[in-house]
């Protein structure tokens, strides 16, 4: 392959299966819905939040949408955990998002790099420690918000078994976790996939499923040495050299 053709049609590698693409799209949709209907409730004293609530159709409508988006979010979380549990335990999927000792080392490495003590950042595999961090914070935060969300939705039922103070406590956990997740996503995640000089203007991998080989080599240099997550439907699309 000539240099010209590689410039025109760069070689791409399959990074995410259709299943992951759909899952992420659903997550974006539900995250946006929950944030748009939830955060204005937290900051209800602010004028623009009140306007937003009125635009949605009032606080009652905002709550209904928030509740049912929450139910769908619960289903998505259950599906995600179940599929990955089955995949990793029974289908030999690579648990590529598990936090390992290398991630701790990478984090320390990058800390020194940022302070100018080391010349280069840590090299990562399929997922960097930052990506893993976002993933686990969103997953754990999501579970917390599901639990506390249902507590807030059904306070009468909850207080039949738990002290009353658990409800205001749940409210603090729910809204604080929401803020943590929201800020994590809009600062770190959106920086890493959009604004970071590495990927600017945008890393489209999660929407197309593909990543240019050069970029993949730069962002995930160690991935070739690791096992990749391969779902059944991906095998046909993958170039032979990238098959495990």
């Amino acid at each position, binding site marked *: 392959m000539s240099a010209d053709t590689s410039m025109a049609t760069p070689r791409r590698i399959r990074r995410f299966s259709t299943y992951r693409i759909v899952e992420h799209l659903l997550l974006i949709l539900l995250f946006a819905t929950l944030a748009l209907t939830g955060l204005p409730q937290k900051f209800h004293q602010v004028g623009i939040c009140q306007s937003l609530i009125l635009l949605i159709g009032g606080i009652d409508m905002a709550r209904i949408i928030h509740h049912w988006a929450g139910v769908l979010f619960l289903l998505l979380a259950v599906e995600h955990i179940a599929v990955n549990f089955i995949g990793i335990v029974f289908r030999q999927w690579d648990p590529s998002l598990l936090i390992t000792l290398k991630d701790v080392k990478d984090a320390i490495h990058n800390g020194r*790099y940022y302070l100018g003590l080391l010349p280069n950042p840590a090299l990562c595999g399929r997922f960097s420690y930052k990506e893993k961090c976002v993933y686990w914070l969103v997953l754990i935060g999501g579970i917390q918000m599901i639990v506390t969300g249902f507590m807030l939705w059904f306070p009468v039922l909850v207080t039949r078994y738990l002290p009353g103070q658990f409800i205001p406590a749940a409210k603090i956990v729910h809204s604080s976790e929401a803020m943590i997740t929201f800020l994590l996503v809009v600062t770190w995640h959106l920086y890493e996939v959009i604004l970071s000089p590495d990927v600017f203007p945008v890393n489209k991998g999660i929407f197309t499923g593909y990543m240019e080989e050069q970029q993949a080599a730069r962002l995930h240099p160690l991935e070739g040495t690791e096992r990749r997550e391969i779902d059944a439907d991906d095998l046909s699309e993958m170039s032979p050299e990238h098959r495990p």
Partner: protein
Amino acid sequence: MRSLRLALLQLVALCLLLTGASTDAADESAAASERKHCLSCHAIRGSVKKFSDGDQVSTYVDPKAFDRSIHRTLPCSACHEEFSSKHHPDRVFRTKQQYQVRESRRCLTCHPDEKINERPIHQSLLKKELAGQPRICTTCHSAHSAQRVRKGNVTTSEEQFCLRCHRYAGTMHFASGASVSTQVDTAEIANSAHRNLACSDCHFSFSPSEHPRRQFRSIREYRLSASELCRRCHFDKQTKMAESIHYSLVSTGRLDAPTCVDCHGGHAIRSMETDRLAIVKKCASCHRQVYAEYAQSVHGRALSDTNNADVPTCIDCHSSHSIRAARSASFHDAIPDTCGGCHGKKEVMAKYGLSTAVVKTYLSDFHGMTLQLHRKEIRNRQRPAAPLAVCSDCHGVHTIGRATGENAAVIKSNLLKRCQSCHPNASENFPDIWLSHYEPSLAAMPLIFILQWFYRVMLFVMVVGLVFQILLDIRRRLEK
């Protein structure tokens, strides 16, 4: 003989009235000489006529006043028929009234009933006479200084003119058979806010030259019509009043609902702002049960015991003119504003050691927040929102007491029932969801306090850390 003399006198009087100064000189000189004769004694002060009951009346006649009177051209004997230059009978009367009644009959000679009946004031007097209360003309018109009544030339002001009759006990009769006194207490007028107004400013269409006859079915209808006149000056209040529950009751036929004069009074009207207890008493005259409750409340006792200027009276919560139905949803939903108007003011609450956090904590909690948003969307609403708990739902309305000490336990024990009225399956733990206006502290709500601070610190550290990391990342990458 006597009737002949009477007829002669009438003729003389009539002639004198009709022809005035150009009357027969002989008659005039006769009248003048008689007058001179009488006044030789009666123009001297100090002599009295005594009655059998010990009462007495001065026999003094002020010649100057008489010269100004309408009867100045009449000889004394025209009215004092039994007297002349030659006769001065010694008459005996039991009482002064008996004397006055008798003398008043003399007026009829020239002023017959048919004539004087044209005036409404006389009608009511004649009705009284039929009921056994005799008329005494001189009470209003006085004796020797009687003035021409028409054209208002007798008094210096309209008020004085009206008071010539209305200072005395008259009666206004209604079709229902009821009646009301037309007497005006001059002291009331002098102290009223309207003391500088003329009578006809309120009693529209009445004047020294006009006294229309009006018919009302009842006192109530008269009062309602009187209230209509207030708007000529107090249009803003009338407009507010038109939105009120009282006005809508009147317009649906409940005529006993109050209008302007029922609260403000008529001639005694004055600013009610200064006497807050009087406001409460006014409302209490109809709303007795509510007043009984209010009087026992922390607000009511402070008002009656110490005339406290900070506690609310009826109108501070219900407003004065635009009083809305207190059971309406809009009134209920505005209660946090109503209470917050005072309980949110630091400078007021500090006097009583009360916290202003009560408003903030309510508004930031579920009910307060939802209520605020419901009120904002009220215009777009198809159907009313479900009622949300407001201050009065837990603390009571007119019975409101302190929320500390014994009362705290009472409020607490009633709370579950209150909750259950909207959340029927609520259990004993349920009311504890509400933190009772406490701002979480380590002592009061450790779980919530710790969680709050844990997340505050964590959020701060996370955001600062992330931003710092991103900035370092950008710097390092641009260095390359």
